[in-house]
């Protein structure tokens, strides 16, 4: 007789695909064998987790189709089961898994699409913070504005890819009218954001990306603007900051600052 700890360990091993005769012996079989009864649980775990991953990575599934996605997800699940019960938080490791997944080697952009899906999922479940607005900064002396280091709002991610991930995302949507996307159109940078009723992303141009990347790395607004100007002298920093404020990319300033 298996003690409960052993039984749960054996059951866990069975669910991961191992043969556990000790567990099979502990289960009552009749005209439906113990093994067939145990398989119901193994299949449910696999299928329900594949379903959860498909829901979190809809773009990846749309790109490769259901059958391929299922095989990919099953491989990932064997390597990395959820560590906690909230399925919306399962799958952080999938983009890395995709990047080294042999059968997807012909789709070099697929891992970045998984990153985009994951970032959208994170944004969707992030708290909705108050945002920094132009009026919130009005009256700030120019010197203070230069030195300001606004933080991205919770759920925001800057994602850079050598591939045109924004256009690939469009082409992968249900009912997409986009004909084809050439990988030579890349690279692309997108900013993923929590919106009041949704998650969303905006495509950034090169100077917007340089500006925002500098901020993410800890630069001030002035330093970020200098970085953008050094790459493209004609750029107007007010346009970049104006767009990022309109996108509501930053968290509101703490009152103490």
């Amino acid at each position: 007789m298996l003690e409960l700890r052993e039984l749960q360990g054996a059951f866990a091993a069975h669910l991961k695909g191992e043969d556990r005769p000790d567990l099979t012996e502990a289960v009552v079989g009749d005209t439906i064998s113990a093994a067939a009864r145990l398989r119901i649980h193994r299949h449910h775990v696999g299928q329900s987790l594949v379903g959860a991953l498909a829901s979190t990575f809809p773009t990846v599934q749309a790109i490769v189709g259901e059958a391929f996605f299922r095989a990919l997800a099953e491989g990932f699940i064997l390597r990395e089961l959820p560590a906690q019960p909230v399925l919306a938080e399962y799958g952080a490791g999938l983009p890395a898994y995709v990047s080294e997944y042999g059968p997807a080697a012909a789709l070099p952009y697929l891992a970045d699409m998984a990153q985009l899906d994951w970032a959208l999922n994170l944004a969707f479940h992030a708290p909705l913070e108050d945002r920094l607005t132009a009026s919130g900064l009005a009256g700030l002396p120019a010197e203070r504005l230069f030195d300001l280091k606004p933080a991205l709002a919770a759920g925001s991610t800057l994602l850079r890819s050598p591939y045109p991930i924004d256009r690939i995302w469009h082409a992968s949507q249900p009912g997409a009218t986009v004909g084809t996307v050439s990988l030579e159109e890349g690279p692309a940078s997108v900013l993923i954001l929590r919106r009041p009723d949704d998650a969303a992303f905006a495509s950034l141009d090169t100077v917007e990306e340089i500006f925002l990347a500098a901020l993410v790395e800890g630069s001030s607004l002035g330093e970020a603007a200098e970085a953008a100007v050094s790459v493209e002298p004609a750029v107007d920093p007010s346009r970049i900051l104006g767009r990022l404020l309109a996108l509501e990319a930053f968290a509101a300033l703490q009152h103490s600052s």
Partner: protein
Amino acid sequence: MQPVAGIGLRSPHLAEIARDRPATGFLEIHAENYLGNSPAHRIVERLREDYEFSVHAVGLSLGSVDGLDEAHLDRVVALIHRLEPTLVSDHLSWSLADGRYFNDLLPLPYTEEALQVVERNVHHLQERLGRRVLVENPSCYLAFAHSTLSEPEFLAELTRRTGCGLLLDANNIVVTAHNLRLDARAWLQGLPPAAIGQYHLAGHAVNDADGEPVLIDDHGSRVGEGVWSLFGEIVRRYGPRPTLVEWDTDLPALDVLLDEARQAGRALGVEAEANARAA
């Protein structure tokens, strides 16, 4: 809560329910879908002003030999303190082992050893919540040879030791009885009436294993005749309780779900007006 019939609140119906506020006895959510900060949260918090709520956890893993996952428990406790639902429940099952979550309501052997594990976990949960919880009978696809108690005996003893309540799922009784060759009506005998706090109803599918029919608790169709019939027996024996219609797979239009809940209300002997508190 009055013994009314309610529906499981599923996200594809959220916008419609928030807009139309249909009449139904109460709404039930799965705790694990509301532990983050998604936009669905805000909608539920607003709906809470107009509806009674039941919070049904699916991931506490009351049967885990290692005890409850404290980090997860903290989040569930916070949700329940914020939402203040009328009912709180989870299952007689386990899902976590060695820090891995299997997303299945896995079966326990019904032994004194397992009873002590579940007893400890339910005690701890009720202490953390400061309230009674309901424990639901699971759908079983297998039984362990070394079980010494029947499932209803195990549940009855659990309520005696912990003061917890029972959530009787009529569909799960039908599924378990069929799959384990038990008599569903015999299963009902000897439960402590005062402990029974809620009923669940759902549809199941028929599949086959080793060429024999097996009932699968897929929550993907209308409540079946056999389940309605057993539910009638339950209500006659134990009286009306708040009753939930669950639907998870192939979710139908909201009207279909509301219609199932109205039928459950009639089976409870509840007048339509009493069930329509949220209009």
